[in-house]
Each structure stands twice: as C-alpha cells, then as structure tokens.
C-alpha cells in the first residue's frame, strides 16, 4: 500500500475514534434496565453469581454456540494441518520438566476451586478451563506432553464431552417447553454439570489450540 493511502487510512481511523467519542459523549440513560431484571430473576436461576447466571442460564444459548466456536477453531487448525518436519523441536529441560510435574496437579486443583466458586462469586468454567489449559501448555513446553498429530477416540470424546453435555441439557430443556430451560429444582445441579463438562472440554480445547499439531493430509504433505 502506498504512503498516501496509508495516511488516508490512518486519518480515517482517527476520525472514527473522534466520531465514536462524540457519539458516546452525552447519552441519556438507557431505557431498558437489564441489571434489575437479572437481579430479579437471579433467585430462580440456580446460581447466585449474576455473571454466571447470565452466562449459563439467561444467555446460555450464546455460551453453547461459543463452545462450538472453540471446537471449530480447533477443527480448522487440524484441517489446515502443519508440515511435520518443521514442527518446533524443544530441547529437553529437566528443571522445567520437574517444575511442570509439580505445578500441573496444583493447577488442576485451582481449576476445580474456580469451577466450584463460579456459582456464587467470580470464577467459573471459563476461568477454570483457562487454568487447566495453562497446565497443558506448561506440560507441552516442558516436554511430557507431545503435540497432537491426530486426536484419538478418547481425546475426541474428552474434547466434545462438555459440548455434548451442554447439548443434552439443551434438548432436555425442550421437554420443559424451551431449549435450555432448566427445571427450577435442578437448575443449580444442571448448571454445575454443564460447567464441569465445559471445564474439562474447554481446558482441553484451549490447550489443544496450542497443541494441535500436524494433521498430515492423506497422500502425504503437500507443498
């Protein structure tokens, strides 16, 4: 791109920033007050923490699809593949490896706590999954876990488990009248089940984003 075009783009973006600022500057209060509605329905949502209530109950459908997004990102990576001979080879490091072996179980514990805490305070499946994923990344960097060439059946099941549980709950809700409608009495437990499934699957998927390695297209690598 030539110089003048670049300057023009930069100027336009600056104008956009100013326009955004000007537009947002003096807005009247919003006519719809959702926080009040959230607070009003929190008691029957099955959890005490409002963000978790929104995430897994009021707007649980968003979350369901979002887990799908993660899964397809992983699938896309596997599908695009990577050339095996150029995979980054890491030199073994005994210190790092020892540390990783020590830290990993601890991180799993933290993840469990975050998951449990999500019901009534900040935390929840995503944060827990992120910690799990971090453990996976650490283990990969330290050596014990190798890159995934082509996820086997067990791994695939683990990757999809959270999504499957979520889907099942969504279908279960249909019997109640609406997709993802939790029965009042069971709401808390069901949400916890969904979260537990998600923690495992999301953790693995997030780690997988890091670990997904060479998927060799049939017929060998193409260049």
């Amino acid at each position: 791109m030539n110089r003048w075009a670049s300057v023009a783009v930069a100027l336009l973006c600056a104008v956009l920033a100013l326009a955004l600022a000007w537009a947002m500057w003096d807005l009247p209060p919003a006519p719809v007050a959702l926080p009040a509605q959230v607070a009003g329905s929190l008691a029957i949502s099955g959890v005490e923490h409002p963000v978790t209530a929104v995430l897994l109950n009021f707007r649980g459908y968003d979350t369901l699809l979002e887990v799908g997004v993660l899964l397809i990102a992983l699938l896309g990576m596997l599908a695009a593949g990577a050339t095996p001979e150029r995979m980054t080879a890491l030199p073994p490091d005994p210190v790092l490896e020892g540390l990783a072996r020590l830290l990993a179980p601890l991180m799993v514990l933290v993840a469990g706590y975050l998951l449990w805490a999500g019901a009534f305070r900040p935390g929840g499946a995503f944060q827990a999954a992120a910690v799990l994923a971090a453990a996976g990344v650490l283990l990969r960097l330290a050596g014990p876990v190798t890159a995934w060439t082509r996820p086997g059946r067990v791994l695939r099941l683990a990757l999809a488990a959270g999504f499957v549980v979520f889907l099942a709950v969504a279908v279960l809700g249909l019997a109640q009248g609406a997709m993802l409608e939790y029965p009042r009495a069971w709401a808390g437990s069901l949400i916890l089940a969904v979260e537990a499934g998600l923690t495992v699957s999301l953790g693995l998927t997030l780690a997988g984003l890091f670990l997904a390695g060479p998927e060799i297209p049939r017929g060998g690598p193409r260049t």
Partner: protein
Amino acid sequence: MAIESVAPLPWLVLLPLAWATLSFLLGPSRGAGIAIVGLLLQAGLVLLLAWQLTTMGTQHHAVGGWGAPLGIDLVADGLSVVMLLMTAAVALPVAIYARAWFVAKPAGAAWFWPLSGFLVAALNGLFLSADLFNIYVTLELLGLAAVGLTAATGERRAVAAAMRYLLATLLGSGAYLMGVALVYGTYGSVSLAVLGGLVESLPVVMLAAGLMVAGMLLKTALFPLHFWLPPAHGGAATPVSALLSALVIKASFYLALRLWFGVFEPLAAVSAAQVLGALGAAAVFWGSVQALLQARLKMLVAYSTVAQVGYLFLVFPLATGTPAEAAAGAWQGGVLQAVAHALAKAAMFAAAGAMILGAGSDRIDRLGGVGARLPLALFAFGLAGIVLMGLPPTGGFATKWLLLMAALETGQWWWAAVLVGGGLLAAAYVFRVLLAAFAPVPEQGRVTGVARSLEWTAFALATAGVLLGLFAAHVVTLLDVGA
C-alpha cells in the same frame, strides 16, 4: 407426539450441532451418512416450519423460557423461513455431492463433515436469531467454520486464501460487534423486538448502524470489498466452494437486509442506499469482466459470485424511500435473487467440479470433450448459467423481473440498465465455458467419467433454480408473512 407440538425452531439449531458433534466423535473423514440423514430431517423441519408459518403466522421460541430482553428469542418470519429453506435446499444436495467428491479427491476430507455441520447450524441459528449479540456469535461460528473448510485442502493457495478470508471475516464481525456495543450502551438491550420500538436517529445509533452494515458488506464481498472472495471460493475444495458461494455470503446479506429494513429503518437514508446500489452496479460489471478474463474455471465461477452479489445490493436504492408497492417488489426481488443465486451457484460449482475432475484440469481451455463425456454436468452448468443470466422462466428471471419493475416504477432507469447489461455479460462468460466444453478434442478419451451422483446433484440444484422461477409466487407469499 403430534406434529403440531414439534417446535422446529430450536431443533433447526440443535440437529446440525448434534450431527456435527457425532461426526467429530466418529473421526476424520467420517460422518457423511449421518450428515445426510441430519440434513434430510432438517429439510423436513423447515417444511414443517413453512407450513406452520402459512397457517399460524410468525413463530417464536424463547430460549431458556426467559424471553427478551433478559433471554434470547428465536423468531421465524417469512424472510427467515425462506433463508432456511434455501439453506436446506442447497446443503442436502451438496452433502450428497461431497460424499462422492471426497472419494475421488480426499484432500480436505478429514474434518469436512463436522465443520460443515457447524456451518449449517450457524446459518440456521443466524437466520432464526432475534438478538444482536447472539447473531454476533453465530456470525463468528459461521466465519470460522467457513475459514476452516477453506483451508482444509492444506494447499498453499487455499491456506493463503483462508487467511485472507479469516482476516476479512474477523474485521467484519469486529465492526459488527462495535455496533452491538454502541446499541446496547444506548438502549440497554440487544433484542430486535425491544429495539424495534426504540431506535431513533441519534448520532451513536447512526454510527452503530454504519459499522454493522459496513461489516456485513465486507462479509458479503460487495465491490470493492470483494478481494478475499475469489481466491477463497475458487481455491477451496469444490463442495466447500459451493457452500461458501451459495450460503455463507447470503447470511451476511440477510443480516444487512434485516437490519436496514428492520430496526434501523428510521435511519435509512436514500443517499446511502444509492451508494450501496452504485457499489452493486460496479460489482456486476467488475465481477463479470473479471470472470470473462479468468483462465481457470473455478475462478470464473467465483468472480461470477462477485458479480451476482452486486444484484443483491440493488434492493437498497429500490426499496429505500420509494413507494410501498415498488419497495415491496424490490425487496422480494432481492431475497429471490439470494435464493436463485444460491441454487444456481451451488449447481455451477458442483458441475464445474465434476467437469474439472473429468477433464483433469481446471483450465477452461482444457475442457474440450467434456460436452461429449459428461453431458449431464455440462447441461447442469448451462442451466445454472441460464438462471444467473436471468432468462425466463428461471428463478433468476423472476428476480430480474421484480427488480426491473421496481426500477422502472420508481423512475430509476439506470438500475434497469445494470440489470439488463449484467445479464448479457453473464451470458458472455457462461457461454465461454460452454463453447470450450463443446470443442472437439484431438486426444480421444482424455476426459474420464465421474461418479454419477456428482452430475445428478448438480443437475438437481440447477433444476431447482429453474423451478424457483415458475413457483416464485409461493416464495413471495411466504415472504410476506410477518413482513
């Protein structure tokens, strides 16, 4: 369970998600069978929904039982159902096609089935959603699935195309998300139903609408934002090309239409609509001329998509600020064009794929002999071409008819010139291919046969594109539900 008690709305999302997951669990390159069964069921569900719509009007489903604005609503009105019908009508034959295709050409087969399942789920979810943020999630689901599918052959060109596509689609949804943020900040809700009564002409809303529509233009590849489309649609595996060109770009067009003539109607300006129309006209000419210049068959078809997208955007000047009757006609014409192009373009890619497979090359000047060896594929290509040219009695003609009427009724004859000229240009590039395929070959037996289902599915899609024109009145009636 009585058929009335089946709620098709949630199932239309859950069903493809279910078979996508299942085929992922089955492993690489597997799941064609369940995909086809799933798509058959989906077709049944959509037909059921269309029936419910004509008898009972617009259908709603409050996810989680909460209802907007706290929860997310699914709503199926005429426009949604027509788009859902289009999705089902294209996805099922393409799946049958893909099953045979990946036997012949395994590149890209590994994760095709789960990815396309998510793609279909995203499309259905998008068409049904009545919640701006939920639509954002479906957009991302759709975009990433499409990019994954594009890259799946693992070839350099395909990966580069996928990367370009990914950046374009991310930028588009980023702009959309910013719009959603501004709208939520202003009104405190992202439900289309709630916003419908609130939106007024504030600067912040104008900015939001501008960002959202611009994002959709990029995703629909309207000239001059089309740069990412030809390499992606031309470089992907053929069943993927068909899905991308037929369906994926229609999703963002649908959204632009939905927003422009829906919640943002109070802001819609005639001048902005004229600009969109002008870009559309430029797309028609630019895309057609580029198609004429291509040496490779699939690139020709991909540039044809760039041209055909142009027609879609003629709706905006013809239906913004014009008399109600003309506007309604133009709007119907635009939606019909989306459907007609979906069927014809899927047919065209499918037929092109079969021809390329037979000829062993995707260069147009190497197609000689295809006419004799693969007459059905060539016939399908020709039929699809006729739909794109807008000749009667096809779906393309019904479209052109409605748009031309609107153009002349509103005295905007310059759009009529675009419609007529574009049709002739389309004829030029379609017949270029037909001529090449009719050419006799010196080397006997150079063209090989292909699986019959590759030819038949292309033919079925093209025929559907033709029949759409004869039964356009039904589509228009359906479209009027809840409009």
